[in-house]
């Protein structure tokens, strides 16, 4: 276990090193900080002097060492746009993104486990077939399109006139399919409750929750089909195994066999994939937050790109790198704990 821990740690450090070199190379090659700092009228000689004083003429490695030293101490430089430390800006935007990811994860877990298990137990039932069909459609819809459709239906609202208004059934269908559309689809709302530090929460008030619903559902929609299919496939495989047959033969109630014996082993691969996917969700938050103008890290990153706010871009990359590396390492460790048969120190298959 210790050997595995050290190995994972070395791996994580290596990855962070690569990311930091890349991030620094971006910073080094993009834009000229001197130009950002001084006015038009400053002569070239003074610019050169400033450049020298800032150490911009030092060799790449010296500059990188300085960057890395500052980064480890949490100093990523100042954001050009916000005029405050880049890490501070990220810290302000982080809670919104985390709450969004949390809400989406909650939706995914609460829906995918029952649906996946049910469609594995009864693969031929119409309910299972419906969800299998829906899940492949779900995979094929990009997350921003889901978001747009949700906005159209629940925020703007739609009036259906497809069916003849004169007949009773037509009028009924029209009114049943038309939607009011009063869900908020823009930002987090103003009814936030302050928790601590930079953390204002959407989860405490009714209005805050209402603002959270559409973005969270959109974000969940991209992962939900994947998880339903994964859980179903794993569960079906587990149900074929000898120990499930044995448990059944012993006369244990089917509910207990499914939810205690089989589900345990089903969740093993789900944990691995799930952990990695939570990292992936960070990428999708960029899209979701753009559509809903959700003031989180993703929207901030896109704004930083459009404003060429290089320190902020670099800081974002480093922070996201840390999030990815930490989640992947934790997932590997959890996997090692829950599945002792896996050879931790061996080569990954």
């Amino acid at each position: 276990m210790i050997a595995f821990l050290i190995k994972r740690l070395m791996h994580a450090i290596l990855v962070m090193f690569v990311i930091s070199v890349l991030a620094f190379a971006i910073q080094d090659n993009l834009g000229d900080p001197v130009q950002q700092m001084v006015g038009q009228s400053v002569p070239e000689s003074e610019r050169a002097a400033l450049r020298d004083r800032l150490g911009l003429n030092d060799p790449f490695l010296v500059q990188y060492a300085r960057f890395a030293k500052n980064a480890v101490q949490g100093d990523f430089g100042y954001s050009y746009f916000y005029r405050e430390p880049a890490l501070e800006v990220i810290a302000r935007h982080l809670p919104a993104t985390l709450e969004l990811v949390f809400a989406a994860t909650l939706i995914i877990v609460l829906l995918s486990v029952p649906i996946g298990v049910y469609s594995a137990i009864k693969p031929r039932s119409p309910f299972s077939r419906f969800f299998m069909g829906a899940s492949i459609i779900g995979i094929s819809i990009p997350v921003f399109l889901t978001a747009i459709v949700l906005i159209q239906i629940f925020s703007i609202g739609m009036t259906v006139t497809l069916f003849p208004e004169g007949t009773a059934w037509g009028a009924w269908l029209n009114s049943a399919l038309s939607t009011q559309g009063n869900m908020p689809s823009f930002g987090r709302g103003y009814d936030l409750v302050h928790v601590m530090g930079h953390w204002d929460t959407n989860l405490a008030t009714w209005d805050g929750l209402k603002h959270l619903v559409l973005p969270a559902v959109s974000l969940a929609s991209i992962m939900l089909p994947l998880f339903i299919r994964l859980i179903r496939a794993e569960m079906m495989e587990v149900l074929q195994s000898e120990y499930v047959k044995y448990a059944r033969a012993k006369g244990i109630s089917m509910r207990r066999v499914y939810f205690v014996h089989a589900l345990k082993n089903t969740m093993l691969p789900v944990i691995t994939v799930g952990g990695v996917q939570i990292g992936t969700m960070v990428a999708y938050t960029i899209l979701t937050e753009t559509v809903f103008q959700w003031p989180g890290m993703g929207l901030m990153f896109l704004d930083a790109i459009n404003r060429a706010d290089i320190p902020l871009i670099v800081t974002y990359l480093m922070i996201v790198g840390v999030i990815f590396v930490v989640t992947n390492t934790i997932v590997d460790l959890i996997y090692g704990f829950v599945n002792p048969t896996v050879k931790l120190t061996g080569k990954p298959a």
Partner: protein
Amino acid sequence: MTTTTSTPSRWERLRDSFLWYSFKRDRTAQLCLAVFICMVIAAFASPLLAPTDPYDLRQIDILDSELPPFWIDGADERYALGTDAQGRDLWSIVLYGTRVSLLIGFGAVMLQALLGVTFGLMAGYLGGRVDAFLMRLADIQLSFSTLMVAIVVGAVVKATMGSAFYSQYAVLMLILIIGLAEWPQYARTVRASVLAEKNKEYVDAARVMGLRSKRIMFRHVLPNTLSPIFVISTVQIANAIISEAALSFLGLGMPETHPSLGSLIKAGFDYIQSGSWWITLIPGAVLVVLVLSINLLGDWLRDVMNPRLYKG
């Protein structure tokens, strides 16, 4: 397989294969292939099919902007699917946009396959240090989502080169970005099947005959790893088209003057609050139908060729 004395032609071999047999019985696969082929033909024949040329500014009238499609009151009979905010005919622009999306999808997958197959073969066949290095690289890249890699690379390239340059070479850039972001998928699949093939007798025989490793890799091992490559290629095309749409939606893809389906959705999204939903949802629907038909084909192909490929 067939035991005829003469070697059967390729067509006969296809007709006798399990692939063709299962295709004949699967209505969904037939429908999807038909839809996909129709869309590809329509997209690449867009200059012939489209009533207007959306790239030609002289044919666009701003007074025609935001006209609804034909089933809504106020539609103009010249524009069957309505017009977008610039007054471009939506039917024409969607045709041209599908062509751009498909071009980038195919191009990116070809690049991915080229890189991934080469690296995968090398990793699997040569083993040792090469294997460790390439697979570690793939691991690192895959531990970030491919979309994240694509967004970051796109953002950095755009910031370095300036947006004017970027949008001029957008098609090429997107092919490069999506191709580079997704090669590990291929490399892993190919490596896995090379490892299974490597110790078979025909490879030993080839080696004993004194053939060079390059020849053994590409002429002997590669043909036997083709079916998984085939299967993931379909899924990867769908993914590449979605990635392209996502990048374009974020403003890191095709410019609005030369739109793909993604940039059409992005452009239309700005007008959805004013009630013109068709500008964004019609290209959206086309995108979904395209990707869905490819995904369903991929699903079918996976079941037929290798039922256990994605398991475990």
